């Protein structure tokens, strides 16, 4: 049975999150990791020339967690990582709101940088999230970008 702790490194939530709290958890009782890299993705006010008012994030519950867990596993296979946390919000989000957080610790900075970017690049093309953009010209689903495919393929 799935419990809340099946994927302690992953959280899909409508609520906002606190960068400070998340980093504190990554660092707590962790004196062996000298490097902490975080990525935060936020809602921008412009996209492809249109004025954005909000985004609506949909996802595929169950598959989302499974795909993110797989991505995190791959990162751990490739780099010497300490702790990892991935948070992705769903529902309606407004300008400046936090959308996604990836936090990684490692003994060494190179591993932390690479693993964090790897996780984001794969999240972008494999995790089942979809964005609907609400603009002053109406709403529409965003198209996937081929540049995201290329970024993931380069690893």
């Amino acid at each position, binding site marked *: 049975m799935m419990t809340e702790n099946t994927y302690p490194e992953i959280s899909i939530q409508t609520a906002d999150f606190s960068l400070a709290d998340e980093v504190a958890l990554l660092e707590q009782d962790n004196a062996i990791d000298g490097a902490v890299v975080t990525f935060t*993705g936020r809602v921008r006010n412009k996209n492809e020339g249109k004025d954005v008012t909000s985004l609506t994030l949909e996802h595929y519950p169950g598959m989302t967690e499974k795909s993110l867990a797989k991505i995190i596993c791959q990162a751990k296979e490739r780099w010497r990582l300490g702790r990892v946390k991935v948070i992705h919000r769903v529902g309606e989000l407004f300008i400046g709101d936090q959308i996604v957080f990836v936090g990684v610790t490692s003994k060494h900075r190179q591993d932390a940088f690479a693993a964090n970017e790897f996780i984001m690049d794969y999240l972008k093309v494999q995790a089942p999230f979809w964005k609907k953009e609400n603009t002053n010209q109406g709403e529409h689903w965003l198209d996937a970008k081929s540049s995201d495919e290329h970024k993931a393929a380069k690893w």
Partner: protein
Amino acid sequence: MIKVVFFAALREQLDCSELSLSSEGIATIADLKAQLANKNEQWQQVFANGALLSAVNHDMVTSEQPIKSGDEVAFFPPVTGG
């Protein structure tokens, strides 16, 4: 029975988020797609989109993926999170 779920633009185009159908005569994702496309012209058009992605039991798969009764199959557009 096979459970089929749809997401995002696809769900809106089909005006359907979930359906169940018999696994009879369906061996792969390609078979299932063909059967769904057969429903009507609107569905045919939607499933003609080669960019659609499919998942079986929460894992991304290709059209050749075998499926069986009890599976949860999902169809959706390329993902755009992050």
